[in-house]
C-alpha cells in the first residue's frame, strides 16, 4: 500500500515537474559540465566538476565564489570562448560550441578599442555583422543616452572614467539585443561607490530590457542584491555547493541591503564557504 502510494506520489511529482518545464522552460540548460586544464607541470586541474544548472528566461542568476572556483571558466564556456571537457550547455535548445549572436558579454575590464570613439565601440557588434544602418546607429545612440553617456559618443575611451568605460561596454553587449547577458565580474575593478551606482544602473537596465543575466562576482552582497538566485560555487574542484533563492521583492535598491532578510541571505551564503573551507573569502 505504502509502496504504491509512494510510487503514485513519485509519478505525480514527475508530472508536475514536466508541467513546470512546459510552462517555464529553461533557456539555458547546463548538464554535467566538466572542465579540465593541464598545467605547465603536466598536472590536470579540474576547473569545473559536474555543474548542473537550469536558467529560466529573464532570470537574473548571480554566481558567487572565491577565486579558483571556476566561475569565470563557467562563463567562458557559456560565452562559447572555451570548450567543455565533458557535459553540455544548451541555450534555447541549441548546443553551445562557439560564440553566439544571442549572447552579449561584459568582461571584467571594459576592453574598449582605444582607437575608436565611444559610439564606434558600441557599434562594434553591429559592424562585425556589416550592419551600419541608420536604425542601428539610432539604437547605439539610444543605449548611450539610456546609460547617461549621450554627450560622450564622440569621445575616446581614455577620456572616460573606469565606471563610464564599463557602461560603454554594457551598451556594446546590449547592442544586438541579445537574449542573454553574460557578465564576468564587470564591476570588480571599480571603487565601492561607483560599484553601487553601477549595480543600481544594471537593475534599471534589467527592468527596462528584460534579459536573462548570468552575473559572476566575488562579492556576496552584490550577488544577493542583484540575483533572483545565487549560485554558490566552491573551489578545488570548481563545483556548485548550493543554489540560494533570493526571496527579496523588487524593485530593490541600496536600502534593500539594510534589511534583515538581506543580511540573513548574506550570512547564509558566507556560512556555506565557512563550512567548506577554513579560509573565509574576502569580500
Amino acid at each position, binding site marked *: 500500500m505504502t509502496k504504491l502510494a509512494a510510487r503514485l506520489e513519485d509519478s505525480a511529482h514527475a508530472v508536475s515537474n514536466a508541467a513546470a518545464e512546459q510552462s517555464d522552460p529553461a533557456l539555458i540548460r547546463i548538464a554535467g559540465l566538466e572542465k579540465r586544464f593541464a598545467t605547465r607541470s603536466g598536472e590536470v586541474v579540474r576547473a569545473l566538476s559536474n555543474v548542473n544548472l537550469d536558467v529560466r528566461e529573464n532570470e537574473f542568476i548571480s554566481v558567487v565564489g572565491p577565486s579558483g572556483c571556476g566561475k569565470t571558466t563557467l562563463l567562458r564556456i557559456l560565452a562559447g*570562448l572555451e570548450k567543455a571537457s565533458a557535459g553540455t550547455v544548451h541555450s534555447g535548445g541549441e548546443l553551445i560550441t562557439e*560564440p553566439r549572436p544571442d549572447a552579449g558579454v561584459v*568582461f571584467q575590464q571594459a576592453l574598449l*578599442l582605444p582607437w575608436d570613439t565611444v559610439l564606434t565601440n558600441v557599434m562594434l557588434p553591429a559592424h562585425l555583422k556589416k550592419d551600419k544602418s541608420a536604425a542601428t546607429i539610432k539604437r547605439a545612440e539610444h543605449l548611450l543616452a539610456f546609460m547617461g553617456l549621450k554627450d560622450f559618443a564622440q569621445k575616446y575611451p581614455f577620456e572616460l572614467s573606469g565606471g563610464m568605460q564599463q557602461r560603454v561596454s554594457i551598451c556594446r553587449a546590449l547592442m544586438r539585443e541579445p537574449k542573454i547577458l553574460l557578465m564576468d565580474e564587470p564591476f570588480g575593478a571599480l571603487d565601492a561607490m561607483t560599484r553601487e551606482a553601477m549595480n543600481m544602473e544594471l537593475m534599471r537596465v534589467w527592468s527596462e530590457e528584460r534579459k536573462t543575466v548570468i552575473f559572476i562576482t566575488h562579492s556576496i552582497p552584490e550577488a544577493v542584491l542583484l540575483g533572483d538566485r545565487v549560485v554558490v560555487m566552491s573551489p578545488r574542484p570548481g563545483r556548485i555547493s548550493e543554489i540560494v533563492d533570493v526571496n527579496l521583492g523588487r524593485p530593490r535598491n541600496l536600502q534593500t541591503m539594510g534589511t534583515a532578510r538581506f543580511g540573513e541571505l548574506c550570512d547564509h551564503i558566507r556560512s556555506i564557504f565557512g563550512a567548506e573551507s577554513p579560509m573565509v573569502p574576502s569580500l
Partner: protein
Amino acid sequence: MNLLTKTFNSHRLQSIVLAVVVIATWEGACRVFAISSLVLPTPSAVAVKLVSLFVTGIIWSHLWATLIEIVAGFVFGVIAGLVIGAMISLIPVLERLVYPYLVALQTLPKVAIAPLFIIWFGYGLTSKIVITALVCFFPVLVAVIAGFHSTDVDQLDMMKAFGATKWQTLIRLRVPSALVLIFAGLEIAAVLAVIGAIVGEFVGAQVGLGYLVVTLNFGLDVPGVFAVLIVLSAIGLAMHGIMRIAARRYVFWIRRNEAPVLS
C-alpha cells in the same frame, strides 16, 4: 616676476641656457688655452664656416644627395620591413623559416658589408640608398612582428565573443594594436637612416655630406667638419621630429607617461 620664474622653469629655456653655457665655455677655453683649430675649433669659427658653406653654395649638392639617400632609403627600408614583417606575422611557417636568417643578416655589421654594395650598385646614389634601406629595415621588421604579437589576449576574446571573423579581428584589433610598436620602430629607423647614408658615403662616393666630411677632414678643415656634423644632426633631429608628430597623430590613444621611471 612670476612670469619670469615660470619662463625660466620651462624645460625649453633651461636647455637653451645649458647650450649657451656649454658653447661659451668651449669658446672661452679655446681662446684662453690657445687650442689649435686643427684639434678643436672655436664655436665661432664653426659658425662662420657653416654660414659660408651655405652662402658659397658648396653644400647644396651634397645636402641634396644625402637627403635623397636618407629619404629614399628610409622609405624602401620601411616598406620592406612592413611587408615582410606582416608576412612573417600572418604566416607562422615563414617566421620559423625566414626569421633566423633575417636575424643573421642583422648581426652583420653594415659598415663591413658596405664595400660590397658599392661594388654591386656602383659609386652613385643607388648603393647608399640600398645600405640605408637595409639599416632601416630591421628595426621596422622587429617592430611589426612584436606589434602583431602585442595584441591583448582579452581583447582577442572580446572580438571572438562578439563573433568577429579572423579578418575582422586583424583589421579592427591586431593592426591598430601593432601600430604603437611600429611607430616606435619608425622612430628608430628615422635616426638610423642618417647613419646608413653617411656610412655608405664614407665607403665610396663622389657627392654627399659624408663625402664632404671626408674631403674636409683630408684638407684639415676641422671647423668645416664640425659645420657638416651640425647639418647632419639637424637632419637626424628633423627626421625624428617628423616621426614623433606622425606618431602623436596616428597612435593618439597612447599617452606617454611623462613621470620619471623611478619616482
